[in-house]
């Protein structure tokens, strides 16, 4: 007869095969802490071992099967009961039976599709994890191992600048320009604000980066706005014809890539908000969406020749070389 233990009779543990070599990435948890997790990319194989350790070596462990799952799911905080799984893979490790001693099982999920980036937000969480389970009659024994997935992109083919003339009739006309519409997470926003007409008394001007997390659909759409950065670009009153430069380094801020309608459940979008404040604390603002993307750290050998050239062109390395040559000539 089986023994109805009230404690766990076995420990279960998941260890990845490349735990020594695989990079870890920091990721925010729901309660605001930052922890490190193994970093995976789309298409990578997830393989490792499940160690089942019997607590009482003499006692047999009867079970209804041992399995390991790889799960990618979206959790909406207001609807915790429903997890929306978009990736669900399972490998059976042992058929129903009994374990007489501690045992290790190998597993491999080959070339797993991980279409979305891991995200922990204000109202929604997208996570990937391995879950090893020993099924039993009364209660299962299970263990989860969370991983973090990053989605990488390469330099977009089309990346037009944002240039617009806005204002209030006869009071304030400005032309603003941002050098790109798509920025990677360690990019620099280079731009300018040109004053065409100034008939109000401006005190200062700033650029805010706003993150908007949208959850829900139809009439239940909910937007959560969060001002990630406030960056003053001008102090004092400008006059007509003045041009104020913008140079905003994104690497200093905690941001994610732009996520649009992920699995039809949520979106995370970013906006630049240009704010002018006059002497009576009145605020004039213009919001503009930008697309953020994640650049891979290493230029991989598998990257095509064209993509390598494209990245050099946008980084300005060729022009930098030209300037270097010029100064060499001047000094000689």
């Amino acid at each position, binding site marked *: 007869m089986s023994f109805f233990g009230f404690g766990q009779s076995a420990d279960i543990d998941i260890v990845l095969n490349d735990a020594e070599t695989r990079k870890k990435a920091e990721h925010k948890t729901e309660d605001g802490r930052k922890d490190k997790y193994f970093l995976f990319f789309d298409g990578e194989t997830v393989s490792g071992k499940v160690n089942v350790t019997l607590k009482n070596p003499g006692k047999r462990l009867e079970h209804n099967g041992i399995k390991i799952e790889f799960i990618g799911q979206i959790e909406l905080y207001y609807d915790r009961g429903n997890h929306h799984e978009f990736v669900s893979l399972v490998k059976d490790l042992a058929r129903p039976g009994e374990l007489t001693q501690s045992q290790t099982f190998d597993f491999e999920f080959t070339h797993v599709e991980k279409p979305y980036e891991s995200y922990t937000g204000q109202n929604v969480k997208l996570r990937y994890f391995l879950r090893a389970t020993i099924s039993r009659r009364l209660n299962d024994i299970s263990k989860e191992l969370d991983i973090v997935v990053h989605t990488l992109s390469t330099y977009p083919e089309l990346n037009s600048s944002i240039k617009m003339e806005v204002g209030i009739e006869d009071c304030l006309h400005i032309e603003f320009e941002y050098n790109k519409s798509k920025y990677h997470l360690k990019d620099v926003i280079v731009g300018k604000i040109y004053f065409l007409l*100034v008939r109000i008394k401006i005190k200062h001007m700033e650029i805010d980066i706003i993150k908007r997390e949208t959850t829900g659909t139809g009439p239940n759409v909910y937007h959560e706005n969060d001002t990630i950065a406030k960056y003053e670009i001008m102090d004092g009153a400008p006059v007509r014809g003045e041009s104020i430069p913008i140079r905003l380094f994104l690497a200093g801020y905690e941001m994610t890539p732009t996520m649009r309608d992920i699995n039809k459940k949520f979106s995370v979008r970013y906006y630049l908000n240009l704010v002018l404040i006059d002497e009576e604390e009145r605020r004039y603002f213009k919001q503009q969406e930008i697309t953020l993307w994640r650049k891979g750290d290493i230029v991989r050998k598998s990257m095509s020749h064209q993509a390598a050239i494209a990245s050099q062109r946008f980084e300005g390395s060729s022009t930098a070389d030209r300037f270097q040559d010029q100064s060499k000539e001047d000094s000689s």
Partner: protein
Amino acid sequence: MSEPAVADTRRLNSKPQDLMDAYGPPSNFLEIDVYDPQTVGVGRNRYTTYEVRMRTNLPIFKLKDSCVRRRYSDFEWLKNELERDSKIVVPPLPGKALKRQLPFRGDEGIFEESFIEERRVGLEQFINRIAGHPLAQNERCLHMFLQEESIDRNYIPGKVRQKDNTDCWSRPMYIYFYFMSY
């Protein structure tokens, strides 16, 4: 391979500023003074008027230098008109001081010098905040208050249309700016 290239952070090109624009008088001059309180009338029909003098170079105002006399109830009228017709959040006026109008006070009540000075400062702050607001500048009531000899309470409320036919904006200009309240 090679170390990561540095991002190009050079400034975007822009037109050099015209020296006349840089050193000329700014086009946002607007100053309103509320001063010279005078008590008018006798006995229980007395009231105080203030001189309201506006100097400006904003083209929306017909007169660049105007001078009128106004009393507290005129300011109240302006506040009510703006609250009804414009979308702005109108700043507060200095208090009505009803207690000061009761009899058997030890002092001069609403004609007490210190009270009049306090009220004068509050009215000056109020009118400067209002007149500098681009949405308030569109209202006929504001122009009438500041630049016409007397306030016609039977006037037809409306907006001031600044249609300057010599304006050369050929490109369409989209007015996206929004106001938040004070």
